[in-house]
């Protein structure tokens, strides 16, 4: 029993990471129908930035996190304004090709700068402390992930549901033309959202070093599961990706615990089944 609790808590921590990695993709996809397969590359960039800041510049990990978030977010914003915004009108195929090309180039850059090996990261000591909870001992790092994830998810949900900015986003996702008609500048809205989304991906990348590892293949390794979160959660909302990420994280953990020989097979099977029966995602927003 205590094992199962550990597995579930691990799964929730993993789910929070998946949420951070996926939420930007989900919102930008919902807003602009822009298929961004380079999202994982931004997360990878965040990971490498955090490694550089902590290991080479000697910053504490907790200080490196907000810097990573802001820096990757700014890079995303600049790229959106300079290149990506020209891609909204082209076909899905060209968007896919461009973003795959970008991710390829980034992953090659990472190999050139850092080499192909896994990157170690210096974490605060209390991350490896074991905290007793629900009768089991939980690694401090897992707990930290869950708390950070919950704070960010709540903040985002409040922002989207209760601020003018959020109302604009919801309006633009529902009906872009009508939103533009009443004077919402969807382009500016999108640039900010894109920056925020890439920043969160960068933060997710930094946080996942200890959990998922960091090497140049990161840009594509978690792409499938991140897209699964978006697809199951439905594009363009906050609650959808949260639920989908937690569900996938916990389900993946449980299946790997009870059926280790099947590995990720079950989770992919589950995903394909969901797509067969709910092509628009479980949340039911149109993609």
């Amino acid at each position, binding site marked *: 029993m205590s094992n199962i609790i550990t597995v579930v808590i691990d799964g929730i921590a993993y789910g929070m990471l998946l949420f951070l990695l996926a939420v930007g993709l989900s919102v930008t996809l919902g807003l602009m129908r822009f*298929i961004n397969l380079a999202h994982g590359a931004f997360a990878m960039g965040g990971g490498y930035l955090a490694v550089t800041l902590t290991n080479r510049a000697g910053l504490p990990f907790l200080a490196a996190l907000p810097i990573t978030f802001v820096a990757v977010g700014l890079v995303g914003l600049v790229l959106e304004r300079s290149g990506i915004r020209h891609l909204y009108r082209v076909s899905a195929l060209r968007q896919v*090709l461009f973003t795959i090309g970008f991710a390829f180039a980034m992953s090659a850059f990472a190999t050139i700068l850092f080499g192909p090996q896994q990157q170690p990261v210096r974490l605060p000591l209390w991350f490896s402390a074991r905290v007793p909870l629900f009768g089991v001992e939980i690694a401090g790092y897992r707990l930290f992930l869950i708390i950070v994830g919950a704070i960010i998810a709540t903040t985002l949900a409040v922002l989207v549901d209760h601020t003018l900015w959020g109302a604009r986003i919801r309006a633009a996702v529902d009906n872009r033309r009508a939103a533009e008609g009443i004077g919402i500048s969807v382009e500016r809205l999108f640039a900010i959202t894109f920056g925020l989304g890439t920043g969160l991906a960068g933060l997710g990348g930094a946080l996942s070093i200890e959990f998922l590892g960091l090497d140049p293949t990161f840009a594509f390794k978690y792409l499938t599961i991140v897209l699964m979160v978006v697809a199951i959660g439905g594009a363009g909302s906050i609650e959808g990706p949260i639920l989908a990420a937690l569900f996938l994280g916990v389900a993946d953990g449980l299946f790997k615990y009870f059926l280790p020989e099947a590995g990720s097979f079950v989770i992919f099977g589950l995903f394909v089944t969901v797509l067969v029966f709910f092509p628009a995602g479980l949340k039911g927003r149109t993609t």
Partner: protein
Amino acid sequence: MIPLSARAGKRVWHFRFTHGVAASLFAAALGSYVLFPDYLALITQLLVLIVFALSYDLLQGHAGIVSLGHAAFFGLGAYTAAILARAGITDPLAGLGAAAAVSAAVALVLTPIIVRGTDFTRLLVTLGVASLIYEAANRMRAFTGGADGMPDFEVAPVFGLFPFDFNGKTAFFYAFTVFVLVYAFLWRVTTSPFGLAMRGIRENVRRMPAIGAPVRRHLSVAYMLSGAIAGIAGAVLAQTSRFASLDMLGFDRSAEIMMIATFGGTGHMAGVTIGAALFGLLKDTLSNVSPKYWQLGLGMVLMLAVFFGRDGIGGLIDRLQNLGRRP
């Protein structure tokens, strides 16, 4: 209004030109056999890559279905041929047939989702299914050898007459014949009324039902054909290299074939053929020198191609054709 005779003349010119291009492609493949007898293994791999690229081009270039998981069919074909050979059915043609059948069957199962989806759902489904099959092959070590691949199986002589030799001569002619047959078959398919209907669907999916075209059935058939040919390509690679491995199913290969179709010019068979051959050659030479700079360059070129190179190599060929057409 162009006079009828001139139009007929244009059509004859078009016919001659495209046949001439196809014939020179075949001649180039044969010529490479004569000129580079030491590189037969590489040339055979290039022919396999071309067949795979043509299969993907049928899907994306003609039917307009984007896929991020086409390597799934390629790998399925490779593993089918390898597993059959290990089970004692070593006849290469039986292997090809089985590979085509298995890939087509899997494609058939997927058609309901592929056909009704948007581009985004298609990308997700193809990526998801490819990951699923990859993971299945990875886990079923007893059948597939898992991450180590499947090295040890025998392949019988073709027709019982031509054994696969160490120099790779039989392998070359085997792959060459498959290439020519697939090219001719796809030529026939894409110029048939069915091929025209596919092009219509690609251009305007809403209007096609209005003229009575069964859109879903056409797309299903295209998807199955494309899957079957990809399976054949995979089987040829497994049989000629006597090896099947997980990377034949992987995401990299799916992304690669998408790039090749783009560089070659989507929907342009001769362009895609040349594109695949050039890509394979460049990859072989450059990735041996420096894999990371090859990947960097590839990414950059791809990003630029999205903005600038709209028609790829096929576009160049068409321009050449228009030069000759001028009175």
